Every structure is written in C-alpha cells, then in structure tokens.
C-alpha cells in the first residue's frame, strides 16, 4: 500500500467522489473508509496487485474504487438500488470492478458469476453479520483472508459493543482463524475490524 508521508493514498483516476489528490495519487480518507482506517491504525493486511477480492456491501463504490486501484479484480456486491446506481458509474470507469446487484444473505444469487477470491471484505449493516460471513466462505481460497467490518450498532443497539465483538469473534472462530481484531476508534465509533484467515 502506498503512503505519502502519513497519508494513505491509492493510484488511479481521480474525481470519483471529490477526493483530494496528492502527488498524483488519490487520498484515501480513514474517516470515510473503514478499510483505510484499519490500515492506518496498524492493520497489517496489504492489498497486492494479483489479488481477487469479493466486496460485500459495496454501497456507493467509494471504498471499492480505492480497493480496485490496488488489486486485480473486485467483485462488488450491493443490494439497494439507489447506491447501486452510483456503483455502476464507478464500475463503468474502472475496468476491474464487476458490479453485482444481489443480497449478501443469498450467495446463490451471485454464485454463477464468482470465482475463488483471495480476500473477502464484508461491510454490511445487517444484524446477522457473522452468519452472512459464513455463507460467503465458499468463495474464499484456503489461506485467503476474510475482513469483517463489524458494525456493533447493526447487531443490537441495546447491547454493550464489547459483548457484541466478543460474540462475533467466537462465531467466526468456528470456521476461521482470527488473526487480528482492531477497533476503528477514533475514525469510526462502535466499529471493529476482524481479520481472519481460512484454514488451508
């Protein structure tokens, strides 16, 4: 990953969402993107040029566009029509994004388009985030990484976020090895990144 001074950037055509440019690179703002926050907070996961990525909860394509700057192919899955409109526009200009309109809860809807990926990145505002993760493991290569951006508030607003994280971690450990768990304070409140690897 490229940094200019302390600023995380990505190479690629700018002007996607009005992001700042720095020495010809697009500034990747940790306040807007959880992946950037995770990386800047010391998360050791690198995006490498050969990677194929499944991105669940692509939304308007802001983070997707940065991820696409680094990797070979991004399969971007989004469910809601309004953000999908924006995602299609981002995908039109970036030849390595495959925009898929489908529900991450129902992998059978997009399975006919999927190949095995090196990284699954999940950022969905749903109460059953761990369950969704388990359903999507079928696309992950053995030894590949799963990044779950856990939104505690979507799981249950009444519960203590720390409990929610502990429960999610236990849930993921049923089928994956958790290699890193990092809260995204101060950039995102009540969010944690849980990085897992799939057993060989």
């Amino acid at each position, binding site marked *: 990953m490229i940094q200019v001074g302390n600023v995380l950037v990505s190479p690629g055509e700018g002007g996607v969402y009005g992001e700042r440019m720095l020495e010809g690179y697009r500034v990747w703002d940790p306040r807007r993107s959880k992946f950037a926050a995770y990386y800047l907070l010391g998360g050791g996961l690198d995006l490498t040029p050969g990677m194929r990525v499944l991105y669940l909860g692509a939304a308007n394509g802001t983070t997707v566009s940065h991820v696409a700057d680094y990797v070979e192919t991004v399969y971007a899955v989004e469910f809601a029509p309004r953000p*999908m409109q924006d995602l299609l526009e981002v995908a039109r200009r970036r030849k390595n994004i495959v925009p898929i*309109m489908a529900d991450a809860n129902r992998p*059978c809807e997009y399975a006919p388009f999927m190949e095995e990926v090196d990284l699954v990145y999940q950022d969905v505002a749903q109460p059953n985030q761990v369950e969704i993760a388990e359903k999507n493991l079928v696309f992950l290569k053995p030894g590949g990484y799963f990044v779950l951006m856990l939104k505690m508030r979507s799981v249950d607003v009444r519960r203590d976020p720390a409990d929610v994280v502990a429960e999610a971690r236990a849930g993921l450990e049923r089928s994956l090895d958790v290699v890193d768990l990092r809260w995204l304070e101060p950039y995102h409140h009540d969010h944690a990144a849980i990085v897992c690897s799939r057993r060989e």
Partner: protein
Amino acid sequence: MLQRYWFGDVDEQGCRGAGTDPAALAKRAATLCTDMDSYVPIDWEVARDCGIVRTREEYIDLLREVCTRLAREKITVAYQARDVELLQMVRMLDEVDSVINRLQERAVEWYQVTNPSFSRKYRYLPARKMLGVIRRGARGGLLDVAEEIDRLHGVRSRLMREVSARADEVMPNVSALIGGLVAARLLSRAGGLSELARMPGSTIQVLGSEQALFSHLRAGTPPPKHGIIFQHRRVHNAPREVRGRVARVLAAKLAIAARLDYHRGVLVPEFIEEAQKRIDAAGVVA
C-alpha cells in the same frame, strides 16, 4: 456434477457455452439458481477452453457487461414499484412547505421594518394573508420575494393534488380511511408500502411521534396517543377524552388497510364501510 455458470453449463463431459451475446447471457443468468451445497466457484480458464473468451481481460469485460445489464434491469424493476416515487413526492411536498413557511416569516419581518406604523395586532393576519399585503405595499427585492413565494404556493397545491391522487392509486384502502395526503405521509415515515404493511397498529398509531415515544420509554413521560394520524380530522376533531381511543381504533384499521393495499392493491368497499363505522363509534362520548 453439473455447474450452471453465467457463461454456460459445465460438467464432467465438458462445457456447453451459452454464446457471447451479453443481452442473451444476461437473460439466461437471471434464471440461474444455484444449489450452494454442490457449488464450485468458477475457474475462468474453463470459459476460455469453452471458446467463450480468449483472454482473462475478455473474460472480465464480458462478465462486467452481463452483470451491469442485470443490475440495470433490477434497478428499473425496483423503481417501478409505484410507492417509490410517491415517497419522494411527499417528502418534497413537506420540504416545500417548510421552505414556504420560512420565507414567509422572513418576508413579514422585512416588511415590518419598512413600514414603522404597521402591526399585525388586532387584525387577523396569518402569514398567507400577509403575503397579499406585502405584494401591494412592497417594492424591489421584497416584492420579488413575495411574488416568488406566491408562485411556490401554486407549486405546492399542484404537488399536493398529485400526491393525493397517487396515494389513492398506490394505497386505495389506507387513503379511503384517512385521505391521500396523510396516507402518503405514513408511507414516507414507514419507508415504503411493504414496510407499512408489516407494521402493527400500535406502531402506526405513533408513527411520527418518535420523540415523545422514546421520552416515554426512557423517562416515563406520558405516552403519545397519536403521531402523523393526528392530522386526520377524526383524530384532531375528537373530544379530548376519546382522542386516544379514536387514534387507536383508526390505527388498527389502518394496519389492516395497509395489508390489503400491499397484497391485493384494490379498494375493498366492505372493509372500508365496516371500518368507518367502528372509527366513528369510537369517537362517540359515552
């Protein structure tokens, strides 16, 4: 094991491609249903050996084309639901309302400082009537603004009629009970017809009074009797002691009406007649 992928069917005997026309591929892909228990992810080289593409670049290009087509179709279908536009219409109406109010208040303040002897006291002059006074008495910028506000009033009433008519069409039963405009506001607060149809009457009763509801739950203040449905005449005209009862009965009937609208989509006169009777009966002071 047969695997059905977007570019064709693959099994032990080999691969049967489905052609290279993106439109045809998209149409075929829309019908695919995968059994996840026996599913194996695609190896793109199979598509190459199958003669669909020559390089990985071509593979991704064609896949993108197919997926983009599918997504556009799905978006179009989602937006065709008639309640989607109604939602935006009623939100715009409420926005126009608040803009008109703020402009009017400001225009009145401005007019008062240009005319030292003017006062609204002892004259029945709501802001709407003030507008006429201002247009007769003002000059320059203030006059321009006053005329613009007047035009906005025209926009607002046309929009209101449109909202009302669309609500009658999208949710005939709910509209028959509380009128198109209030029906549309309920829809907007619920977030869509399917959401409204899934709500219990007690939720519909307090839609729009979330602040009072949560202060009740948190601090034990008196619970709200009504939210948006207060705007309906049978609620706000009801004597104070039965207002809660009217709101409750009305909301219960609205919950049924919303389900009728969602599942049948046509007016059910027998239900409406029965419901009207019940609601009217609730408003009678014993």
